């Protein structure tokens, strides 16, 4: 019984951590935390970049649509102008010209 108690006491004996253990542990935790922080920063950067790309893409598409519409209108305006000039030319040749 005495042996057992002695063994138990020995096993439960308070052991001081080696020198610098706390600092090393804290440094490791800090390093892990820093890696995690860097990861979060990259995640935020990625999200911001994706949002920016989405907004810029949207704006570019909007500009493209506006440009296409403007081009269609321009071509139609030229078409109408051309048709009117042709009709004027026909009228001038077929009708009396006052001036």
């Amino acid at each position: 019984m005495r042996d057992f108690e002695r063994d138990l006491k020995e096993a439960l004996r308070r052991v001081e951590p080696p020198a610098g253990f706390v600092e090393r542990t804290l440094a490791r935790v800090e390093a892990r935390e820093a890696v995690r922080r860097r990861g979060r920063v990259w995640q935020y950067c990625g999200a911001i970049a994706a949002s920016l790309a989405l907004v810029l893409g949207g704006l570019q598409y909007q500009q493209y649509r506006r440009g296409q519409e403007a081009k269609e209108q321009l071509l139609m305006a030229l078409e109408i102008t051309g048709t009117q000039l042709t009709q004027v030319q026909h009228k001038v040749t077929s009708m009396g010209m006052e001036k």
Partner: protein
Amino acid sequence: MRIALMLATLLCAGGVARAQFTINLDHLAKQAKESVEITLDGELLRLAGRFLSSTKPDEAKAKEVVSGLKSIYVRSFEFDRTGVFSEADVEAIRKQIQAPGWTRIVRATSGPRKGRDLNELAEVYVRQEGGKSTGIAIIAAEAQELTVVQILGDIDLDKLEGLSGQFGIPKLPKAGK
């Protein structure tokens, strides 16, 4: 100096505004069976020009013509009956073109034009500044159709002639021939 520049800018802007049609033809648009309303100026015109292809021959020529333009205004209405617009409507449009610098170069009419029975009318106006054409306007009216076109900017008739046969533009007679 800054105030003088601002005043000059305002005066120029006023000049352009006066040169452009400001007439409201909404009352005719509402009654039209078909209508085309196009107003392209400044930024939109430049944007449209950028979208014209440089490789397609017709668009490339149009691009060249458009590069000097400041604004394009087109109103074209087709009605399902006669008498929707009168000579007074046409006169209101005409009055806007009768500004200094504008000259009527063609006027062709047919049919009774007194009162509301306006039959056929075609007028072409050109604006000249410093020996250069800086505007062209067309008023074309038939019993059930009315079209008003105004193009402002550097209009190079040689370039415009280059568009002959495209976009419905006829072969233009060369001056002095």
